[in-house]
C-alpha cells in the first residue's frame, strides 16, 4: 500500500505564488481572456450596429433637413418631396398588435393544453408541432401568404386581399411558437402545490386555471406576448409580400398598406447610398431599432413584477 510519494510538507514559500507560474495559473488566465474576448466582440458588434444605423438614420434630420415632426406625423410619403413615415409606423403597429391579439390567446390555449389539460401526451404532440412552426423560414411563409392567404381574403372577405389583415394572419402564425413556448415554461414553473390546493377547495379545473394559475404567472405570460410582438415588429420578407406596400394609412384591414420593414425591403436596394430617400429608409431602420429596445425594456419590467 505505497503512499503516492511523501506528502509535500507545507512550508511557507510553498504556498506563496511562486514566480514561475503554475500550470493552473495559465489555464485560468486563458479561460478568462477567451471568454472576455467573446463578450467584448459581441458588445462591439452591437454597439457598431447601433452606431451605424443611428448615424445614417439621423442624417435625414440633420443633414437633409427633414423635420422630425414631418417624419413622424406626416401622412404623405413621396420621396424627394415629403417624407411622412406615419403610414408605415401605424402599419407596423397595427400588424404587430393584431398579430399579438390573435397569437396571444391561441398560444395561451396551446400552453394550457400542454401543461394543464393533457400534460403527458399533449406535450409530446404540441411541443414538436410548435417548434416545427418556428423552423419554417420567413421566405416560405411569405409565399404561402401570397398564394393562399391573400386569395382567400380577396375571395371570402373582400377587398384586395392584401393589407393589414393578411399581414397579421401571417405574422400570428410566425410568432405563435415564441409565445407558446414562453407561456408553457411559465405555466410549468408554477409550484405544484398551488393547483392541488385550489382543486382541494372544490374548484373546477377552469376555475383553478382562470382564478389561480393565470393570475400568478400573468407577468410571464405577458412577457411571451411582448417577445412575440418584438419578433413580429421586425419581420421583413414575409410581411412585404402580403401587405401590398401602398405608402398610405389604409382605409380598411383589407386595403393595401405598408410597414416599416416592408418599405425598407422594397426600396433600400433601389436607392443610392447617401441620397435623402436612402437616409429616410435608414431612419426607419432606426425606429425599428428603438422599438426593439422598448420591447426588451418592457420585458424587463414584466420580469421584475414576476417574482414568484
Amino acid at each position, binding site marked *: *500500500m*505505497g*503512499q*503516492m*510519494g511523501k*506528502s509535500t*510538507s*507545507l*512550508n*511557507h514559500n*510553498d*504556498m*506563496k*505564488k*511562486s514566480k514561475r507560474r*503554475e*500550470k*493552473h*495559473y495559465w489555464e485560468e488566465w486563458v479561460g478568462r481572456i477567451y471568454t472576455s474576448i467573446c463578450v467584448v466582440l459581441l458588445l462591439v458588434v452591437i454597439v457598431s450596429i447601433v452606431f451605424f444605423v443611428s448615424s445614417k438614420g439621423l442624417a435625414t434630420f440633420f443633414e437633409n433637413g427633414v423635420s422630425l415632426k414631418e417624419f413622424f406625423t406626416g401622412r404623405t410619403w413621396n420621396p424627394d418631396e415629403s417624407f411622412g413615415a406615419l403610414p408605415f409606423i401605424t402599419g407596423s403597429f397595427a400588424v404587430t398588435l393584431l398579430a399579438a391579439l390573435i397569437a396571444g390567446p391561441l398560444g395561451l390555449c396551446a400552453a394550457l393544453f400542454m401543461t394543464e389539460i393533457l400534460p403527458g401526451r399533449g406535450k409530446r404532440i404540441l411541443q414538436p408541432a410548435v417548434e416545427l412552426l418556428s423552423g419554417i423560414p420567413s421566405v416560405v411563409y411569405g409565399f404561402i401568404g401570397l398564394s393562399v392567404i391573400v386569395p382567400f381574403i380577396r375571395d371570402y372577405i373582400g377587398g384586395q386581399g392584401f393589407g393589414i389583415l393578411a399581414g397579421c394572419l401571417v405574422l400570428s402564425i410566425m410568432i405563435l411558437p415564441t409565445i407558446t413556448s414562453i407561456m408553457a415554461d411559465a405555466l410549468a414553473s408554477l409550484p405544484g402545490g398551488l393547483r392541488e390546493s385550489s382543486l382541494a377547495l372544490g374548484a373546477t379545473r377552469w376555475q383553478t386555471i382562470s382564478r389561480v394559475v393565470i393570475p400568478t404567472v400573468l407577468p410571464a405570460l405577458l412577457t411571451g406576448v411582448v417577445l412575440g410582438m418584438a419578433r413580429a415588429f421586425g419581420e421583413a420578407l414575409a410581411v412585404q409580400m402580403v401587405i401590398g406596400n401602398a405608402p398610405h394609412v389604409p382605409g380598411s384591414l383589407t386595403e393595401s398598406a405598408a410597414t416599416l420593414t416592408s418599405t425598407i425591403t422594397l426600396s433600400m436596394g433601389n436607392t443610392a447610398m447617401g441620397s435623402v430617400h436612402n437616409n429616410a429608409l435608414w431612419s426607419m431602420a432606426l425606429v425599428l431599432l428603438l422599438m426593439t429596445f422598448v420591447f426588451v425594456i418592457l420585458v424587463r419590467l414584466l420580469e421584475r413584477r414576476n417574482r414568484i
Partner: protein
Amino acid sequence: MSQAFGTEHLSVFYGDFEAVKGISLEFPAQSVTALIGPSGCGKSTFLRSLNRMNDTISQARTTGHIWMNGSDLNDPATDVIKLRQQIGMVWQKPNPFFKSIYNNIAFGPRYRGMKKKKQLDEIVENSLRKAALWDEVKDRLNESALSLSGGQQQRLCIARALSVNPNILLLDEPASALDPVSTGKIEELISELKNELRIVIVTHNMQQAARVSDYTAYFYLGKMIERDKTDKIFTNPENKLTQDYISGRFG
C-alpha cells in the same frame, strides 16, 4: 507530520452580516474534531472558510487567520488552488463527477501531471481501498459513478478526495443523507483515516460526534461557545449553553 493547523479570530461576513464571529480553534494532528450546534450557527460556513471555498460565493468575505505551520492560508497572496490541493472536502449530498468510477478518482492525480497508467491504477485502487469501496466496485470501474448507491457515491467522493493525498479532510454532514448501514461504514472509515490525516467534521448527529471525534466544539449564533475533548463535552461541559444543547432542551 505534526504541523500546527488552526484558526485565529476567523470571521466570515455575508455582505455586512457576520455569520462567523472571531473564532480561534486549533486542530491537533491525527485527530478528528467535530463541530456541533443548532442549524444556522455558522459551523458549515466556518468549515467552508478553511479551504477558502467561501471565496466562490461573491459577497462572502473572510477575515482573521488560518494558520498552517506558520503560513496564513487566508493571506490574499496564498495560491488558493495550491491550498485546496492540500485540503479535501466532502459534502452532505454526494457529488461524484458525471464520469466513470475510475475517472472520478484518477481526475485529481491526472490534473497534477500523473500520466502513467500503471501509477494511476495504483492510486485508484489505493484510494478505493482506503474508502472501503474497492471490493464493491473493483470489477466495474468503467461504469458511470451515478450507477452507485447513495452510500457508495459518498465513499467514492471520499476516495476522490484521498486520491490527491491531502493533509486535512473536511466533512460537511457526510452521512446525514445516508441510510444507517452506509452511515456506519462512513464512521468506521473516519476513525481509520484519522491516523493518516486531520479530519474536521460538521454534524447534527451528536451520537455520531461522540463516536468518531476526539475533540468537539459547540457553535451557537456564529460564536464558539466551548471546545474540549469529546467525552468531556458530552459528560459535563463547562458552559450552561452547551449543557442545554447536549441534553436536547432546545435547538
